[in-house]
């Protein structure tokens, strides 16, 4: 059939802009040399040796830790909201889903930056706290601020997939559970929650990946003290110019995420055949 050829331009695009660049990064990651002149690269594992020192390992550990905590907070805050929205009437439901999406239409850097106004020394939160008799709180330029930024930016990514699974739940199953004498708690624990797990897993993936690799939130809200793996990669490529070390950290981050995803998708049996990605 001639129709099959229509994907041909995309295959070329895929090859040039997705496959080749990744191999280039892989190549850079296992060599050393002067990355500015692109000459005389030699094979070496030095980049990884360098990464395995306490300074860099601590940064990596911190990034993973902050991402895990922010994902957990998103889940705890987001799950009930998804549940509440899914129970609303169709019309309210659409409005509420829309209201989750609308904030994403304002530039995310700017929204994150606006937290400076809210959290700052003379900020609104401190003003209210002051009126209530609290002392000035140090809310900015620490891990809490970075966490808040992550939760703020990625919460909708947790709520939307959970909501979409919940809204498709078969009502009959819930009714059946109730008919068989389960109270509301049991119905939730034994029927609704297990069935919503695919959404939870998608949500975790969608929050964890951007959270672990961010450098924007940490540089805006974390100040100079807060360095994450994303910041390290950014520095190597934008300022220090050691692309080899930067590439090796990118590879480490990528492999780590793929492993984490493989681990979570073990819990998700229905993922197969959903638009591909079964391999990941």
């Amino acid at each position: 059939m001639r129709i099959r050829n229509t994907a041909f331009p995309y295959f070329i695009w895929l090859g040039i802009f997705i496959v080749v660049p990744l191999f280039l990064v892989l190549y850079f990651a296992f060599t050393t040399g002067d990355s500015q002149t692109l000459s005389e690269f030699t094979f070496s594992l030095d980049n990884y040796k360098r990464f395995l020192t306490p300074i860099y390992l601590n940064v990596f550990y911190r990034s993973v830790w902050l991402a895990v905590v922010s994902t957990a907070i998103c889940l705890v805050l987001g799950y009930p909201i998804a549940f509440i929205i899914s129970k609303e009437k169709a019309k309210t439901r659409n409005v509420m889903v829309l209201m989750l999406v609308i904030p994403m239409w304002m530039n995310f850097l700017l929204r994150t930056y606006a937290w400076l106004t809210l959290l700052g020394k003379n900020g609104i939160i401190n003003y209210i706290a002051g009126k209530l008799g609290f002392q000035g709180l140090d809310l900015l330029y620490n891990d809490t601020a970075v966490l808040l930024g992550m939760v703020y930016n990625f919460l909708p990514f947790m709520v939307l997939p959970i909501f979409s699974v919940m809204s498709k739940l078969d009502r009959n199953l819930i009714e059946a559970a109730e008919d068989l004498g389960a109270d509301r708690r049991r119905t939730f624990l034994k029927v609704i929650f297990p069935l919503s797990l695919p959404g939870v897993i998608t949500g975790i993936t969608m929050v964890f990946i951007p959270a672990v690799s961010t450098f924007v939130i940490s540089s805006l809200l974390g100040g100079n003290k807060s360095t994450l793996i994303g910041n390290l990669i950014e520095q190597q490529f934008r300022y220090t110019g050691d692309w080899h070390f930067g590439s090796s950290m990118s590879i480490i981050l990528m492999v780590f995420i793929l492993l984490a995803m493989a681990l979570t998708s073990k819990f998700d049996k229905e993922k197969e055949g959903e638009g591909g990605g079964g391999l990941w």
Partner: protein
Amino acid sequence: MVEKSIKRLYTFMIFLFLYAPIIVLIVFSFNDSKSRGVWSGFTLRWYFELFKDREVLRALYYTIFIAITSSLISTIIGTFAAIGIFGMNGFGKKLVLNLNYLPVLNPDIVTAVALMTLFRFVKLEFGVLTMLLAHVTFCLPYVILSILPKLKQMNRHLAEAAMDLGATPLYALRKVVIPEIMPGIITGALLAFTLSIDDFVISFFTTGHGISNLSITIFSMARRGINPIINALSTLMFITMVSLLLIINYRTEKQEKSLEERR
């Protein structure tokens, strides 16, 4: 009753959390002082200065230019790609789908540095072109993923019937397949447009000297303090987007109603 009010309160708190920064941004775009956090009276000054600020207007121009071009290109390539991929089977299809998923799952920063390395390697000058190529690359998978489900829903025999009745494959594609999957194409294009307009990380790594979109401008401003002009501009963009959305929503609701009445 108690439970209901707890639910209400909780929903309110979450939405307050999501909207607080936006409210702050909009309010401070009317603030008669350059420093954030201090309110010194209402003004429309920033809205007037916005139209005189060359740097911001240029950034806006690049943002919109790249968003429109990249979403157009990725929608065209992506539509044909989705149709082609849908017709494939076996190992090839699996491989392509997995490769297609790679930029979706990969962190932005990895995609960004990979593209940056590529452009350096082939000695392409960093600028609008590199940024555009990068945007098309990260939009394409999303376009394809929005169209594929529509193809699955489509009746497979439609295209065959058209061809049996004498249509050439291209004619059948144009007259039968594409109209059938149009909602998916539109979703994909809109998704690509929003992704492109909001992108920072990939643009940051693939742009060249002197070329910056709004996100990059905001990021570089953040260190020395963001000019309220940006707040004014974002307020205008935000209001435009929300009203567009409301109009579209209103129209589809009306259409649905008239459809129901006809039934």
